[in-house]
């Protein structure tokens, strides 16, 4: 089963030693550069972040190394555009020609994007894994993106039908597919985690979630029958409460799932264990939420003040209308960009770097001696998946 390292095996803790100040400096500089480059700098920022995180991760004093380059993922993005844009154009043309006869005209497009998203996710993983170097040996992957997409979509059916209860088993199945196609040089990976083991650890979260959703539904139903005057306040409170619950549940779930994923990883005799605590993950999410809300409130206040001064300014000087509105538009655009970029900084600091450091610090590896026999094998994979991930905007955070 998911037996952690037996006590007599020598077990080495992993550590995360990345410098926080360096990371923040890089994050702020890179985020600012997103403005004059119209967002193109994100490929460089993502690459730098990965280099930093990989280099900060140490196993027996040896750090990982990320060898991907920004140019590779930029090219992947351009290829993804070359695939997606014709799809959209053809789809648009078809939907016009078919016209009103097809009320569900959007379904095939969503279907295509759904498959592409799964395909891209696998290929993005292949790219990242094959850019990871440890002890002068490359990690690499085989397996087909389409094969994975096919399996992943088949797996979604039971998950949907059971409201998520089947998830542990499908996750174990897909993770096994990924890990068995993952190699460290000549050493093939495997996944030892089982669906029932995950189920035993998460069923109560599922129960809480379903109950919460039911209670929420009932409350909303109740509120709609309330006096309209009281509704606004109630809706605000309910939304806030729902957000808090969802954050807590997802943080707890993420903690349990990460631990299960890590403890299932095998490379021959090398096994990982993790002592990741739910409360640490929840605390990380609380910090992230706090900063998200603070940033949102600050910008909300700023835009209210701005709107008020704009109104006063305009009624005062009608003559300068052209200039005033131009300046107002420029200020609004800059304000909006700053807002989006600040949210990105919070996200990357807490949910990318913070999460990485938390998870890495919880891991211990057993039987690392087995690595001594490994010889180099495999090669780097293409970056199309990364490009698709970016263009379709899933998992583009890291």
């Amino acid at each position, binding site marked *: 089963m998911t037996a952690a390292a037996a006590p007599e095996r020598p077990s080495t803790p992993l550590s995360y030693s990345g410098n926080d100040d360096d990371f923040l400096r890089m994050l702020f500089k890179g985020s600012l550069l997103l403005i004059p480059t119209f967002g193109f700098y994100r490929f460089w920022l993502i690459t730098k972040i990965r280099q930093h995180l990989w280099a900060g991760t140490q196993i027996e004093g040896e750090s990982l*190394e990320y060898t991907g380059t920004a140019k590779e993922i930029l090219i992947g993005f351009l290829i993804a555009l070359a695939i997606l844009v014709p799809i959209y154009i053809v789809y648009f043309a078809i939907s016009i020609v078919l016209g009103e006869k097809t009320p569900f005209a959007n379904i095939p497009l969503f279907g295509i994007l759904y498959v592409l998203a799964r395909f891209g996710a696998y290929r993005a993983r292949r790219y990242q894994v094959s850019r990871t170097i440890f002890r002068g040996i490359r990690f690499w992957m085989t397996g087909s993106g389409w094969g994975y997409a096919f399996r992943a979509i088949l797996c979604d059916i039971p998950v949907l039908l059971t409201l998520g209860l089947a998830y542990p088993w499908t996750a174990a199945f897909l993770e096994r597919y990924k890990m068995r196609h993952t190699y460290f040089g000549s050493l093939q990976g495997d996944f030892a985690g089982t669906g029932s083991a995950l189920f035993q650890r998460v069923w109560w979260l599922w129960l809480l979630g379903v109950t919460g959703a039911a209670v929420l539904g009932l409350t909303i139903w109740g509120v709609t029958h309330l006096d309209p005057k009281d509704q606004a306040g109630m809706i605000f409170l309910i939304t806030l409460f729902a957000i808090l619950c969802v954050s807590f549940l997802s943080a707890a779930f993420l903690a349990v799932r990460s631990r299960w994923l890590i403890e299932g990883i095998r490379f021959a005799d090398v096994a990982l264990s993790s002592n990741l605590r739910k409360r640490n993950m929840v605390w990380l999410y609380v910090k992230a939420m706090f900063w998200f809300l603070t940033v949102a409130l600050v910008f909300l206040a700023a835009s209210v003040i701005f709107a008020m001064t704009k109104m006063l300014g305009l009624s005062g000087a009608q003559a300068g209308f052209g200039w005033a509105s131009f300046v107002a538009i420029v200020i609004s655009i800059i304000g909006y960009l700053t807002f989006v970029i600040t949210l990105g900084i919070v996200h990357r600091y807490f949910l990318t770097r913070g999460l990485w450091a938390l998870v890495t610090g919880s891991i211990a590896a057993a039987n690392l001696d087995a690595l001594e026999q490994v010889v*180099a094998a495999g090669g780097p994979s293409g970056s199309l998946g990364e490009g698709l991930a970016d263009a379709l905007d899933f998992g583009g955070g890291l």
Partner: protein
Amino acid sequence: MGLAVFYDGKTARRRVVSLVVTTASLDLYEDGETIASWPCNQVRQHPAAPGVLRLGPENPNSLARLDVTDAGDQAEVFRNCLFLTTGARKESTGRIVFWSLAATASLIVSAYVLVPILAEKAAPLVPVSVEKQIGAAVDKQIQFILGEKTCNAPAGAAALAKLSSRLSSVSPSKIAPEIQVISSKIPNAIALPGGRIYLFKGLLDKADNVDAIAGVLAHEIGHVRHRDSLRRLMQTSGTSFLLGLLFGDVTGSGAIILATRMMMDGAYSRDAERQADENAIAAMLALGRSPRPMGLLLSEIDKGENGPIPSMLSSHPLTTERLETFSKRTPTKEGEPLLSNEEWTALKGICEVKEP
């Protein structure tokens, strides 16, 4: 001379080696034997944990790595190896900014220069049946945006049909115009791809004779004949699609919405407008009616409105020159009125639904 950790890139075996840094090369010894010698100018730096200097050979395919932790050795390496950050790893921020700006500029130029040219060339190639389908899709959007009802009180609809057939008889079009009155208070008239023309009730209210309305409709029929709406739709969707790319909207869903909105507020080109004016004047003259009332109606709207300028006027405000063009052309022989007084009254009341 100090100790360093070496991986040869072929096996994962960790080897502790003695490192000797000379001005020419980094020499690695294991148990007194040389195992590698890297020329200084071919050594490159790789990202590593804080305090560790990770080196590798110039060839990016080689994964041989040397981790130097000794501060003295690190200083020696920095002194002797001058190309540590040369090559693919070194990308200046200035270049990235420059190329991003260049890419953005080329996108903008394509959006505003290339797309109109393409639309101009491609519009005549679109089959009429396809244009009709595009028109139906746009029509749905427009009705959704306007949220207004079309008017069809029977007597008014009959008058409109008569007016429409008289105009069509002198202004033949491959795409049959299909005129409808819409109950909006804005004084405006728009032509959609596929031949549908919306005459806004606000314009009908402002007109005090049928010739003014007939002129406006003949102008819109001119747009239908020359497929100006299709051309403009293709152009605005292309332009907004490219600009949407810039803001990360790959789906172009924003572009479609923007393009249909532009059908209402956007402007045709000056040439298209002049052509439509010519069509209106020619049609009116052929019917033996003066185009002057249309000019007067437009100038009245131009003066009277302080809200958003209707699309009929937004492309080029009604210049005195344009008004003159309408005024100076008079029919050689006066024709019979386009509608009787009763029919004209019925048309004006097309939006009045009788209470049962």
